[in-house]
Each structure stands twice: as structure tokens, then as C-alpha cells.
């Protein structure tokens, strides 16, 4: 019973991880471009703590 639970969890985790890795590799790169563009666009007048 418990062995089955751990096998299910391990396989599920491995499959989920592979999918996440592919997804984040593509979408994360896009997020980096947008982040740098957004930071560049921040005006100096916004400065202030």
C-alpha cells in the first residue's frame, strides 16, 4: 500500500518535472526579455525609496 504510494509519487514527480522544465525553459526566457525591457523603461523620476 505505502510502497505503491511512493512509486506513484516518484513517477508522477519525474513526469511533472520534465514537463515543467520544458515549459519554464521556453516561457522563462520570454519573461527575462520582458523584465529587462520593463526595467529599461522605468523612468529616472520614479526613483525614490
Amino acid at each position, binding site marked *: 500500500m505505502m510502497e505503491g504510494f511512493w512509486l506513484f509519487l516518484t513517477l508522477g514527480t519525474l513526469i511533472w518535472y520534465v514537463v*515543467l522544465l520544458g515549459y519554464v525553459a521556453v516561457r*522563462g*526566457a520570454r*519573461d*527575462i526579455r520582458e523584465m*529587462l525591457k520593463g*526595467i529599461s523603461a522605468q523612468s529616472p523620476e520614479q526613483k525614490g*525609496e
Partner: protein
Amino acid sequence: MSNFSFIDGSIAGLYLLIVVVIGVLVRRYVSRVDQFLLAGRELNVFLGIASLAACEFGIVTCMYAAQNGYEKGFAGVTPGILLALAMFVVGKTGFCIKPLRNAGVLTIPELFEKQFGGRVRWMSGVVIVLGGLLNMGVFLRTGGDFLVTVCGINPEYLEITMTLLLLGIGLYTVMGGMISVLITDYLQFIVLSLGLLIVSVMIFASVGWDRLVETVQATHGAGGFNPFVNPDMGVAYVLFNAVVALAVVLTWQTMIQRVLASKSSRAGQRIYTGTSPFFVARFLLPALWGIAALATLPAGEVTGSTMLAMPKFLSTFVPPVVMGIVVAAMLAADMSTDASYMLTWGGVIYNDIMRPFRKAEWPQKKGLVWNRSIVAMIGVFLLLYGLWYPLRGDLWTYLTVTGSIYLSSISVLLIACSYWKRANNWGATSAITLGAIMPVSYLVLEQIPETAPFARGAIGPYVWGILSYAAAALAMVAGTLLKPARRRLEGTA
């Protein structure tokens, strides 16, 4: 004899160089303190997931999760499952993190000032930094131990290995702050994930699932699969880790800084729900490595700390070239963790502890110089503390107990600040004081030979830890209610 070869060293060295160069190159985007600490609040969901996952998986994580697997079997994965559940629930509901992000603050203590006053903000900053520094103090030594064992390097070179690694990390963190950290985290997430997946699949293929299960059964019995019947764990262990898990996802600096850096509270919540399953992987995959070490290493091979069982196993199990990828993955894991820890705790020192010394607002340039200096000083501290602190007991327990110095009180303060309008500075001050005294007293008792049996045996870290959280919560309620009504009406500070 390790399988680590010149080619492996070249792969790892090249990777290290690429990361440092990229990290340094983005420094031109930093011209303000909020860009240095929070990347100008431009963090979106997928980069947030990569960054949060990378920073929350260091060599130290791999070592204690593998040690849990070696010593407790599959049941050692319990803290990871609890963390994943807590993160998913908090991400889905926005519990505390939504009001925190919407407040537009740089740090949690800054939020506290609005309800509890400037003194509570300063005290919170002090306990957050104290707990965080003690916690990260063991990272370098543990990382060095791993690299020396896996690569077969002479232990005499441990200190110099650690120093060189820290210099590289410090360089890009000091230059580019959170922007460097986020971009290098992205690379590091990909590399560390490849390393984690490759080794785990190799273990499945070479050692086999049946052998792993049989080893756990033979060594730990039913307690290797079920934490409630494991003699070293039990209800107190599960309960303590559940409370710690909730407190961690609400207040752990490296996690909460991603929420504060996100574009919106919605993006922050999605980063949490998206990353939550990673916390199972973060414990489960290294635990498999620890169990594989238990199954394959000859009796008598593991002398001294069981923490070194997994790196000993990897040193002969992983073939050349793949070894280079694995070492690069572990370097990636360590770099992202150390960089994030130095930056986020440095942010609290600047924003909250130094607040009383900044009567007037400082120019951005001066603020940046101070932030960079603080990060560099934390690096020096890591080096010194990592060299002389003798770690006793298991690593995960040390991390949870030191983390509890602030986790217990700050999580109570954050919940009260977000949902209890009546909570005041008397309650907050009492909670911070008691929440810090309890774990520190445990660490002291554990180090003194005369009191060590009492601390470790009679009470134990788990019950002590639960009492810390209960004491902080009770202190918040009692302190708030004890404050005279007249003074409550006059103000909170």
C-alpha cells in the same frame, strides 16, 4: 576513487565562468535600490518559478534531503510534501502574501511598521537577519564537503574551493543584485534540473525500484514508508514540520522576495502554486539518491556523518562526462541559493535594521553602495562562520531550529498584521522576544555536554520547535489584550 575527471572539471569550470560573466553583464540595468533588491518589480510567473525553484535547491538541500532518505527512508520526504501543500494552499488563497504584495513594501518588517510602529520593524529585522545568517552559515561547509567527496579533491583544498566559489557568486550578486540573481537562476534551474533528472533516472535503471524498496524495508521497516510509525519521527515531527512549512512559505526571505518582486499579487500567487510541486521533487529525488547509497555502498563505507553517504555513492556511480554535468548542476544549485540568501537578507539589513540611521532619504547611489557592501559583508560572514561552526545532529533539524528564531514570531506577526486589526506593538514585541528565545536556548542547551541529553532526548527539537510557535502566538494574543485600552486608542507605536 572518484570518477571525476579533467573533462568533468572543464565542464563545471566553464559553466561557472559563463554564469558569472552573464551575472556581471546585467549590472547596467541597476540604477535604483528597488531594482537591486526587487528587479524593479518586473518578475513574471515562469521566470519566478525557475528562480524560486533554483534558489530553494542548493547543495545543502540535496545533502539534507539525501541524509533524510538514508536515515529515514521514503518517510524522510515528509517535509517536502508538507512544504508543497503549504505553498499550494497559500498560492491559491493568497493568504498573507496578497495583502503583503499589495502593500508595495520592500520587506516584511516594512509592512509591520504600518501597524506596530518603527521599533517592531527594527526588532523584526534583527531576528530575521539573526535566524537567516545562522541558517545560511552552514551552506558553504556543506557544499564544500559535497564537492570534495564527489570530485575526490584533497580535503585540504575544501576552504579554498569554498572561497573561490563564494567569490564568483559574490561578484555577480554585488554587481547586478536581484536582476543578476533572477537571470542566473534561470540558467541554474535548467542545469540543476538536468542533473537531478539524469541521476534519478540512472538510479531507476541501474539500482532499480525493487531494490530501493527492499533496502528501506530491511533497514527501517514500516517506519521507512510511514512517518507516523517511524521511531525517529512520529506525530511531533510531522506536526513541527507542518507548522514550519506554513511559516516558511509565508515569511522565508528568499521566497517572499519573489512575491514582492512579482509584477502583481496575482503573478506572485501563480509563482507559488506553479512552484509548489517542485518541493516534493526537492526532497524526493535526493532522498532516492540517499536510499541508493544505502542500498549499494558496502557496510563500513559510511563512517562519521551519514550526510556524506550520498556524495560517496555519486563519486563512483556517475560515469565521467555525466559527472561533469552533475557537478555543474550542484554548483548551479549552490550558486543560486547563496546569491539569493545574501541578497535577500542583505535587503532586510539595509531596509529595516539601518532604517533608524537613515533620518533623511539617501540618494539612490549611496543606497546602492550600502546594499552592495552589505552583500559583500554577508559573504565574508559566510566564509568565517562556515569554517568554524561544528554541526552536531542532523542538518535539516539545525536548519529548522535556526530558522525558527524568526519563523515562529514573524509568521505570527504577519498573520496578525494581515487579518487582526486589533493586534498591537505589545503583542508583536512579546511574540518576537519569545519566538527568538526558545530556539536559541535549544541551540545553547544542545551544545553544552551537561544539558545536551536533556535537550536532544527528554524534550527533543520537534516538541521544542512546536512550543516556540505556540509561545509566539500566545505572546501576540496576550500582549495585545494586556495593552491598556487608553494606550491602544492613542496609537500603536
